[in-house]
Every structure is written in structure tokens, then in C-alpha cells.
């Protein structure tokens, strides 16, 4: 016979008590009862001679605390000078870092998509597909969007801006920079052929693009410097076309690369046979980047035009590296080719991106 029911149950510590494990459950969107179940299985009960009711009460209480904190986590800088919760600095850092952490499965689904209401509506599909709770998907999505909105209009380097406003670790701030950059340029990442790439692959590429191809790479005090690609540079890329349109140059380039690689790779003959196609592929990508549509397709183009042909010829990563080095460097020896600066700026990024993307 249940003679009593607990109507009210709260616990407030002068120093706010937060259990990291429960915090993770909350972030992952577990309901209180699910979290209690998992905790019971985790053995915390025996450890502390507690009962299921105790766990239930504790979990509820912690969830409430997190909910109250959430408002502050939206502007992490406030967490440090707010008076409501007394939280030691290292715990604050933990709270922020975990709140802004995201699942790589989730980010792969929305990377490059517009962070709009429409995308948010589709989150239940994402949730279904990834097995991440809808609640957690929403938090992650809102985090992306919040960071995007704040840094969008700011001057100065993207990663630093994110760190200043959201107090994230260097690593996490870089990841967010990638997410913001991809969202802003709407790079296609969802195609089937790109599925084999991880978020970290893309994040690496984003880093390359940000530090070499954006306005900020040249002038570091303009708005949007790190989010938008340098238009002038994209325009200049058209000049590279000469490498494939001028037959002499193309042949010269090929022979230089072949000379350098002969005997150093097992796929020499395949490379030699395919050189012109590969070179055309890379340079056509460069020449088309003035179109927004083609910018979006940068990664899919790289895969289709370059990575796939090489992969079918069974190039190893070492082969790839060797080829790209010599392909880039040989262009410097071509005396009629005048666009060395543009070439280096283009190939530097393309080379590292391809190397990162060239895996199974």
C-alpha cells in the first residue's frame, strides 16, 4: 500500500554538484528513467549502498540543475561571471566543452547543409538514421547554428573568434570553424561517393581552405574573412587553364613529372597513361570555382575526377604523395607558365586535401 507520495524533492549545494556521467546522459537526450536504468546497471548502487529511489531522485535533481544551466551555456562567457551557480573553473570548462561536443555521425549528416529551419525539421530522420536521440540532435544542431550566427559577422580569425565567444578548446574550436565554413559555402558532403569520408577528413580540408583560400588568408581584418573564399583568387584560377589548353605546356609538364617518377613507383605506367586526364581533372576543377555551384561540388569533383581514377589504378598513398609533389613542383620549371603564385596557392590546398581524402 502506497501511503505516501513524494511531491517535492530538491537538493541545492553551495558549490553546484554535477555528476559528469549524468551530464552525459542529459546531453545524449536520455529520459530520466532511461538514465536511471543505465546508472543502475553501471553499479553505482552497490558502490554507495543506495536504492533505486535514491538514483531517481539524484538524476531528477541533476537534470533540473542542467536545465537551469543550459541558458548560461548558450553564452559560455556568462558562465564565468554569473552569480547563480558556484562552479569551479575547471568544472565550467568541462560543462562547456561537453555541451558543445558533437557526435561525428550527426555532424556528417548536416555538414555543408544550410543551418535553417528546414534542416532542423529533418532532424527526426537524422535521429532515426544515426540512432542519436532527437533531443541530442537538436542540441547539436542549435549549437552549430548559434556558433554560426555569432561568428558570421565578426572580424578576425574564425577559430579565435569561436574560442573567444564560446571558450572551447583549440581542437573543438577548429571543428566548429570547419562546420561554420562548410555551412557557409554549402559544400556537398552527402553524396554516396563521399560517404567514406569522415568528419575529420572534411575538417582537415576546411582548415586548409580557411588558411589558404579565404580573404583572411591575405587580409586579416575584413569581415567574413575566414568564411568566404577569396573571389579574386578564384578568378585568377582561370589562368591555370593554360596548363591543359596549351599542348606544349601539357606535354612538357607530363614529361617533367614522368622523368621525376620513373623507377620510383609501381604504378608508373598507369600514371603515365592517365597523366593528361588527371591534370585536366584538377585544372578544370580550379577553373570552374568561380561558380558557386561548382564550389559546392569541390569535394565530389575531387573524388570523381581524381581520387577514383587513381584508386582504380591501385595507387598507394605513397604513390599519390609522390605524384602530387612532383606534379606541383614541375610546373615551376615550365618557363612559359607565369602563374606560379596562384598555382602554389591552389595546389598546396588540393594536395593536402587529396592526401587526406585518399583512403578507403
Amino acid at each position, binding site marked *: *500500500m*502506497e*501511503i*505516501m*507520495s*513524494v*511531491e*517535492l*524533492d*530538491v*537538493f*541545492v*549545494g*553551495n*558549490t553546484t*554538484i554535477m555528476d559528469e556521467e549524468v551530464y552525459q546522459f542529459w546531453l545524449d537526450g536520455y529520459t530520466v528513467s532511461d538514465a536511471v536504468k543505465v546508472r543502475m546497471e553501471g553499479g553505482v548502487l552497490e*558502490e*554507495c*549502498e*543506495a*536504492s533505486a*529511489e*535514491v*538514483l531517481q*531522485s*539524484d538524476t*531528477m*535533481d541533476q537534470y*533540473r*540543475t542542467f*536545465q*537551469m544551466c543550459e541558458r548560461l551555456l548558450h553564452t*559560455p*562567457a*556568462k558562465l*564565468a*561571471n*554569473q*552569480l*547563480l*551557480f*558556484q562552479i*569551479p*573553473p*575547471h*568544472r565550467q*570548462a568541462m560543462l562547456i566543452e561537453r555541451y558543445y561536443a558533437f557526435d561525428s555521425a550527426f555532424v556528417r549528416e548536416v555538414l555543408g547543409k544550410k543551418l535553417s529551419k528546414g534542416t532542423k525539421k529533418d532532424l527526426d530522420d537524422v535521429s532515426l538514421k544515426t540512432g542519436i536521440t532527437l533531443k541530442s540532435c537538436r542540441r547539436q544542431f542549435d549549437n552549430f547554428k548559434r556558433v554560426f550566427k555569432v561568428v558570421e559577422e565578426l572580424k578576425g580569425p574564425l577559430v*579565435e573568434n569561436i*574560442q*573567444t565567444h564560446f*571558450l572551447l578548446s*583549440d581542437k573543438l574550436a577548429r571543428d566548429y570553424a570547419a562546420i561554420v565554413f562548410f555551412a557557409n559555402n554549402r559544400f556537398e558532403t552527402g553524396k554516396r561517393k563521399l560517404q567514406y569520408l569522415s568528419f575529420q577528413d572534411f575538417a582537415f580540408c576546411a582548415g586548409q581552405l580557411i588558411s589558404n583560400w579565404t580573404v583572411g588568408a591575405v587580409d586579416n581584418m575584413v569581415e567574413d574573412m575566414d568564411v568566404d573564399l577569396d573571389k579574386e583568387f578564384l578568378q585568377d584560377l582561370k589562368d591555370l587553364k593554360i596548363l591543359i589548353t596549351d599542348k606544349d605546356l601539357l606535354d612538357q609538364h607530363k614529361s617533367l613529372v614522368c622523368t621525376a617518377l620513373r623507377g620510383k613507383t609501381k604504378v608508373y605506367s598507369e600514371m603515365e597513361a592517365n597523366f593528361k586526364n588527371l591534370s585536366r581533372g584538377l585544372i578544370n576543377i580550379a577553373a570552374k570555382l568561380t561558380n558557386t555551384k561548382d564550389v559546392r561540388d569541390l569535394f565530389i569533383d575531387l573524388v570523381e575526377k581524381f581520387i577514383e581514377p587513381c584508386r582504380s589504378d591501385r595507387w598507394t598513398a605513397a604513390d599519390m604523395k609522390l605524384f602530387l609533389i612532383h606534379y606541383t613542383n614541375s610546373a615551376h620549371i615550365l618557363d612559359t607558365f607565369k602563374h606560379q603564385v596562384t598555382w602554389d596557392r591552389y595546389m598546396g590546398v588540393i594536395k593536402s586535401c587529396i592526401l587526406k581524402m585518399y583512403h578507403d
Partner: protein
Amino acid sequence: MPGKLKAKILAGRHLPVMDRASDLTDAFVEVKFGNTTFKTDVFPKSLNPQWNSEWFKFEVDDEDLQDEPLQITVLDHDTYSANDAIGKVYIDIDPLLSTEAATVISGWFPIYDTIHGIRGEISVLVKVELFSDSNRFRQSSCGVKFFSVFCNTRDALHLSCPAPSIPRCYRLAAVHGFVEELVVNEDPEHQWIDRIRTPRASNEARQRLISLMSGELQRKIGLKVLEMGGNAVVGYLQCFDLEGESGLVVRAIGTACTLEKPGSLPPSAPSASPSMETKECVPSPGRRSTLASPVLSVGSSQLSQGFSLSVPALSFSGMTLQLQGGAEFPFFTFTRFPPGFLLHVGGVVSARSVKLLDRIYNPDEPETRDAWWEEIRQEIKSHAKALGCHAVVGYSESTSICDEVCILSAAGTAAVLDPTLMQEGCLDDGGEHRYCVFCHVPYDDFNSPFPAHLAQCCTCGRHKVPDVLFTTIELPREAKVSGKGCLIQARLCRLKKKAQGEASATAVSNLLPFMEYELHTQLMNKLKLRAMNALFGLRVQISLGENMVVGLASATGVYLNALPSPGGVQIAGKTPGDTAQEQHISNMQRKINDTIAGNKELYEINPLEVAEDVSGSPIPEPQRRPRLFRSVSESSTEVPELDLAYGRKDAFVLEIDDTDALEDMHSLLTDAPAPSGFYSCNTEVMPGIYSWTSAVQMFTSVRMFRLGNANLTNQGVNKAFNDLCEDLLKSLYFKVRSMVPCCLCHLNFSVAVPEEELVQVTVTAAAMTFDKDAALTTTLPAAQIGMFVYFLSLKVFTWFQPLSPALSVFPASSVDYGSFADRCSTLVELIKVKAQTMRRGSIKTISSLETGSPLLRDRSRSVRSTHSYSSNAVTVVKMTPLSFIPNTRIIKYLGIINMFFIRETSSLREEGGVSGFLHGFITEVFAMVRAHVAALGGNAVLSYQMKECVFMENPNKNQAQCLINVSGDAVILVRHTEVSRLH
């Protein structure tokens, strides 16, 4: 015109959006004191306004300064309609009125609204210039210091010997006696106007009124203290009685004292004799129930511990009055005493009285209420006399109100105080102070006021001691205990018929004696089951509800070496021959025996060893001490029979005559012990644990349960209440499990019956960790103290190594930031202090750091490699219900904190239901207390109490309201180790 109050409004931050269109706010501030109001300019379109106002100056009487709070209102300017209030800050000016407390109030305060809670923060600067007061007939009592608890005897003594050159806070020069006062008013919530004003206006009126009333009360008490020749109130205890229709009573008791800064010469003892009118006892409806339990007297202390320097000179003008039979009450509100203060303890004395409330017609002359309390105090006094004692220590008063019925309660510990101390003002350290003296009864066998089981003292074998001892005070430091103590609670819930007025009062009065008796029995049984023989810090609370009365008694049980070992508990059946029952009883008996044996092990009670220890140690022959007050049976010439006394296992017999008793027995046995690694007590610290660390986590937990509408029986509700308390304790242990080994200290349960079938339990305590491996003996001979401190500072030195050579270089990672941050902030404090005491700037590194924050900034940079978010880092403020934090030293008392808040909501569901609402509110209250302390320049609140937490809900209307009253002493603390490092 004795004072000028100056306030400056600097800036705001995190303000709420008040204009939906622009998502911004046009904020300005009104600063009000008394009837004068100033305004700042409007700072348009900002959530972080920078007003940088001029100094607003108020020229006021110091009487007003004491009564009134400074009221700061933040508003949103609106051109077309009325300005919207964002929220308010009330600042108590009192700490600025004493020259020795805070000199400036400066800091960020949460802006509080009774409907929305905290809405942003405001930075304020407040100063007071006092002119010398030439008026002899003044009404103010500026400069009288108030302390929630004052602890002259440093409690963490075992742990840490203070460096001699550190300024001691205060020295107790004289104790003048008991002071009390009460003021009454109509409750704004129950005035007719409340029907037409907004809830916000009503709440604010109430908050303001209570603030005014407590200011007035404090001033009046201060006046009495001045009359008595004192300069401080120690053990100040202020309470509110929300009497509903009949009004609002704010009352306070305390002990008037003369404190002085150490080093100064003791003043010629002031001998002002307060002319207390004897108040006429107004006959009133009501009955009383009283209970006096046997207790014993505590004797002299051990003076060899190196703190005899700080032993106060005591002069008792109050005492003298009492002995002459004056109206003065020889009561003392504190629970800890300077060594030698207590000579004998006679027992717990308590008195209750049930009254019918009626409207207070003339608030300026609250005679009825005064008379009620007078009556109760007289009763307490006579109980004490009956126990052969002339004083009552650890005295407190409380009420419980339900509709128009009110229970007034008072309790304390009857005691005999040391006459040598009182007369000479110095301690006779030539005399030997035995650990057991305080256990000897102050009355003799034949004149015993009640049938008491007296035995020979187990330590000296020369005097009589009672078999058990109950007291309301802390365990005297000189007491010798075996093993550790534990929290013991008696819980009781009794149904009562719903009735009105006098009928209800009669029902309650009839019930009370039975409840007292049962609580007492439960305490006794539980004590025996734990193999202990004394209770300290006993607090019995009786709470009145419409259809039930709830009783909760909490105390800390210990095994006093001087008292006889408790015999076992024996059960006897009433009907011999009933084999089934006999079987049952023998099972039960076995269980009980096992429990007792288990508890002995659990609490490490091993009295025999201690006895040998004692007899083996060179304790000199007990010298006779002069006893002026009462001749104790010192003539006991019987041969000491130590062994006999121990062997005397006169078992405590429990008769089981019906199923009720069986149930009770069951509940006794099902009281779960604390999980391993945990201890709990309701005294300041746990007897038997001495190696505390300075890690303190203060918390408040509130639970409320509703009894089902099933057929309620006494047994059923009793069990439900018992389960609630047990579950609550379990939850608390679980919450602080990361602190193990840990003790919940000063566990303060308070119970209320806010509505029919609703029981609310509020707990405040401090979880403190201790060093399990520190093999410290209970007493530390003076010679060892030095060594121990040396050991401690060595340990801490390693912590500090990264800091010491170049203060600006902090290791980036691999540091435990928690304690690190802690250390940094205290270090900053310390450096400030250092700068104050040195005033020379002879050490360059230190003077350059004087500004305080660079250190903090450095610290957070080490957390965040690139960005600092700490330019305005918030001061860490520790809070504890104890009067100290282990391993720290109080370098300044900044003043008493006494705050009252109301919070109301009409969107209960949206705020997360009752739990969400209350969770948020308590969090906000903590934040406001911390902010006020930080603004005074403090870093801790000691003797913190949540004295009131009145919760009301109306779920059907989606509404709830809560009133919270908190108090404590704001102080500046530094770690001992840091202090000694600086010197």
C-alpha cells in the same frame, strides 16, 4: 544628523530583454533610502548598461541607518507607458556602522524580482560616514556587533595551532547575560489592500517590512546591550512568526557580551544593571507540557593545550543579578564555551505552551507575546533550579503555528558555571582539570529531583554520574569519548482531529506530553542500541498541522568514558506461555544483541581500553575545586570500583505487550546505519573525528510528501515519516559520495506541516571530508602542537611549490584546478591582508599583486590556453552552518547576514513544477547571500542557517509561493598554512 550614506551605481550586466522589438533594454536605477529617492540617467538600448552615476548622498539618523535597508530598483524606461520594474536589490547597511566590520560595500548584486527571480546583476558602491554621536538619549545602537555564533574557543584546535602573530578576532571579556526583544506588525499579505494590489507589490511590501522590522529589532536589542554595558550580541537568534491574520512577529534572543580586540586591556567591568520591568503575566488559554531529563554537569577543562592565552576573563553581571532573584534570565544562547566556563550540566530543560492567537491590537505594546515568552522562560528557570543549576546554556526558542493555534517552545541545558572564572576573571590553571568532572551530577542522590540512576564515575571513581546524559550543547572539548558519535533521531507523527480554536488547542495540549514521552523513549532506545550513553546538541521540534502533529528529535550520540557503559536492551513479553510470541521475542532479542555488537564495532566504541588508558596515564589525584553554588556529594568515600561499574550491565528492559510495540521495535532495528565512509551528526563536528580537511560542501535539501487518502493510522503516518527521513539521509549520502571519507556535520532537520496531509522536511548541513589515515589522538598535548603544525605546513608546501618562486608563472596543465583555484583566491585574499598589515611595500612582488585579480587571471589562462574569461571572476564564497572552517583562520568578522526573500509564480508548470520552482529559488537565495558577502569583502559565511522555508502551492491555479529566511556571519578567512607562510 549623525550619518551620511553614499551610494554609487556603476553598471549592470546580463539584464533581461525588456523591449521585444529591439531585443534590448533602456535601463535606469532608482536608489531609495527612507523617503529620499535618487535616479540615474537612462542608459539606452543595452543589456550591459554603464551608468557610472554620481555619488547619491543621504543624510540620515543612525536610527534609520540601522532600521532601513538601501533599496535599489532597476527599471526599464518606457516613453509612452509606465516604466517596467526589472527587479530590486536590498542592501543592509548595518555592517558599515561598526568600525571594526566592513568599511565599504562594493560588488555585483543579483537583481531580484519576486515573480521572475534573478534578472541580471548590478554593480554598486556604498559607504557610510558616521559623525560622533553626542546624544545621550539616543535610540540607536550603532556599533553593537551581532554574531550568529561566536566561538571564542577555536574549534579546530586539534588540527592547527594559529601562528601567534595573526590577529585574533576577538576575545570574550565579559558575559552580561540574556537579551530578548520582539516586534510585531500586521502582515501585509493579510491586509485588505492585498486584495487590490499585484502579487509583486504585496511581496515587496512584505520583504521590506520584514527587513525594517529586523533592523528595528536588532537596534532595540543593541540598546539593551549598551544599557547592560556590553558591546556585542553573541548567539543572536532571530525568528519570524507568521501568525497570519493576527500579524507578524519578529523576535530575537541572544547573549550580551563585551568583546575586545586581543591585546587591549580588559575594561573595568561594566556594572550597569538593566532595569527590567517584571511583566505581568496575562492569563491566557493554554496548557503546558514540560519534560526534564537527567543530565550531568561538565567540569573544568584541560588548560595545558597552549591556548590559555586566549582564555577570556569573564565577569558576570548578569549572573549576579540572577542570583539575587531578579527578573533577569540566566540564559546563554551559545552552545560552545570557553574552557572552564561550564562546571556542571544538570540536564535538558524544556517547556512548551499552547496558545490561541488573537489579533495584536497595539503593535507598539506587544504585551501578550512578551508575557507568553516570559512565562515559558520562568518555567525553564525553575526546571533548571530543580536540577540544582543556576543557569541554562544552549538555550533556544521556537514556535509552530497552525491557524490560530500556536505552540511556543523553549529548551536548553541546565548548568552550573565555574565560579572562579566568574569572579576572578582568570583561570586557576594550577588546578587539575579532569576529563570527567563535567559528568558528575550537580545534585546528590537523596535530593535528586527525579528518580535517576546514578553510578560511580568511571573515570575518577569518586563522584556520582548519571547513567545517560542529554544536553542541547556541543560536546565540551575536554570531554573524553570512546570511538565516534552518530546522529540519532526520534521521529513521530500523530494524527489529531481537525478542530477549531480552543478545541484544537486542547487537543494539542493533550497530545504533547505523550509525544514528548515517546520521543524521549525512542531517543533512549536508539541510544542504547548504539551502545552509547550521552546525547549532545539535542533539538526537539514539534510541528503542528491541521490533522496531525509531527515530532522530530535530533541529537548526536556519543560514548562518554566517564559514564557507565550502557547495558543491553532486553525484551520481555507480557504473556508468558505464548510460545509463538516467545519464539518471536527471542529472535528479536538476538537481533538486538547483534545490532548492539555491530554498532560497537561500527562506531569503534571500546571503552575498556580507554579506561585502562586513563588509569595508566598519569592523572594526578583529583583536587577539590571550590564549589560555591552547590555542595555535591564529594563525600563519596566509597572505594572506587571501576571494574564493577563497567560490569554492571543493568539491562534496559523493553516490554512488548502489543503489536504496536513490536512495530516500534522493528523500526528501531531498521534504522539503517550510514553507508561505509560516511558519518553524520547534528553537532558542529563529529566527536571522535579530528583530522578535518578544509573541503566543505554546504547544502540544503527539501522534501515534501503527501499522505494518501487511505485510512490513515498513527502507525501508517509514523512509518511514512520515518521512511521519508531515512530516504532523505540516504539521498544526502549519495549526493556527496565523492567526498568520502566524509561526515555530514550540523545536520539540521526541520519539519513542517504546511497543509493537511502534507509534510515538509528541510535539511541543511555541511559535508566535510577528513583524513582517515591521520592517526591523531583525541587530545594533543601542548608540546605536540608545534610538531603537528610543522607537519602540516610541510604537506602544504608541496602544494605551493609552483606558486612560491615566481607568483606569475603558473603551470599550464597537470594541476588539480579545483583546489588550485581555491588556493589562488585565498591567496589573493591573503595578499590583500598582508598588504594591509604590512603597509610598507617592502616586498615588491607582493605589492604589485595587491590589486588582486592578476593572479586569478593568470590562473584561468592556464585553464584556457588562449583566452581568458576571468577579467571579472566571481569570488568564491564558502558557506557553512558551522562556526568555523577547518584549517582556516577568521581574520575579520564583517557583520551578520540576515536576509528574507519571497518568490512567487503563477506559471508553476512552466518552471518545472514545485521542485523546479523551489530548486531555482534556493539556488537564487544562495547566490544572493554569496553576492552580499563578497560585496562586504568576505569569502565565507559561517553559522549559516536557513531559518525559515515556508512553501505554499496551489497547483490548480498553477501557483506557488515560498518564503525563505537565512542568516549567518560574513567573514574573511585565510588558510592557516597560508598565514604561516606569510609570516
